């Protein structure tokens, strides 16, 4: 009896150690894999992204600018915090499905679907108060004195009215859909969000 007790403890300890090791490998592997899918290289490994949205991004301030700060795909399109990131990653399986189905594998098909795709993103950003924009941009961090008079007035008004970045800043990193009508997109009265 007295001989068996240390053996049980030993067994339990070994089991625990194996558990910890396996846990580290699996959890680490999972996170590494998730990080690997969270890079621009991964995003543009799909022709749909590389030939359309990535090409368009290259002409914008989010790709090249005075100070050399660049935003890559996941910076704007994948949430930073873990819970929302997982939710987004699960949603992305739908994108994989359509990639293999070839839903938007030509420029024509992409253009025909662009309004729907854009509205998905606009609506998501509207619902999260442009969370991904706010990883870098924030009303509270803006020095209104350093902005153009026009920008500072509009930003102050927008902050007061409770508008969010995407209400005014649509089509800043990619081309706007041909169905988009700027006259129907007054902040607060836009018809381009889904409910």
């Amino acid at each position, binding site marked *: 009896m007295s001989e068996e007790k240390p053996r049980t403890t030993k067994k339990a300890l070994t089991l625990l150690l194996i558990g910890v090791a396996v846990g580290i490998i699996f959890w680490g592997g999972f996170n590494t894999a998730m990080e690997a899918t969270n890079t621009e290289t991964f995003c543009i490994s799909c022709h749909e992204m590389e030939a359309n949205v990535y090409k368009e991004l290259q002409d914008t301030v989010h790709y090249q600018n005075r100070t050399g700060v660049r935003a890559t795909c996941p910076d704007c399109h994948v949430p930073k915090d873990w819970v929302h990131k997982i939710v987004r990653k699960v949603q992305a399986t739908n994108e994989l499905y359509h990639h293999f189905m070839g839903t938007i594998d030509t420029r024509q098909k992409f253009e025909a679907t662009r309004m729907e795709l854009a509205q998905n993103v606009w609506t998501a950003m509207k619902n999260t108060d442009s969370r991904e924009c706010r990883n870098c941009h924030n009303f509270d961090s803006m020095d209104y004195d350093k902005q153009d008079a026009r920008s500072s007035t509009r930003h102050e008004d927008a902050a007061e009215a409770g508008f969010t970045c995407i209400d005014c800043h649509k089509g800043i990193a990619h081309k*706007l859909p041909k169905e988009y009508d*700027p006259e129907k997109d*007054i902040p607060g009265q836009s018809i381009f969000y889904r409910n």
Partner: protein
Amino acid sequence: MNTMIKTATRSLVLALTLTSAGPALAADTTVIVDPQRRDQPLDGASAPVERRQVEVVQGGIARSYKEQPPMIPHAIDKYEISLRLNGCLKCHSEETYQAEKAPKLGDSHYLDRDGKRLDRLSMRRYFCTQCHAPQFEGTPLVDNAFEGRR
């Protein structure tokens, strides 16, 4: 007969070519300045664009004469005027100008060429920058006391 006419035509063409080529050959010694590329070689990269600030004027830039299309008192490089859309209309159209606190398009912009009023911006007026332009901040080369009209 045919050959004779052909030869005559040929010599006439030759003579005409020679006479018209004369002045061009003489002009070869003068330096031709290409107003757009200046002295940049055609097969090389163009010269870097001079960075200048667009003038931002609260309340707009004064007009110089009565029917002058107003100048644009802000930067417009982020607004697109294309087949897809006209970015200026985001603020300046009849539907949006109040919410955006921006000046509205002139009424004339809704008339077609027969003077008939349209519901939407007339396509003759679609390309705003054909008449309206932003201004770069520059120092006047000479003193000027001219005052435009408001």
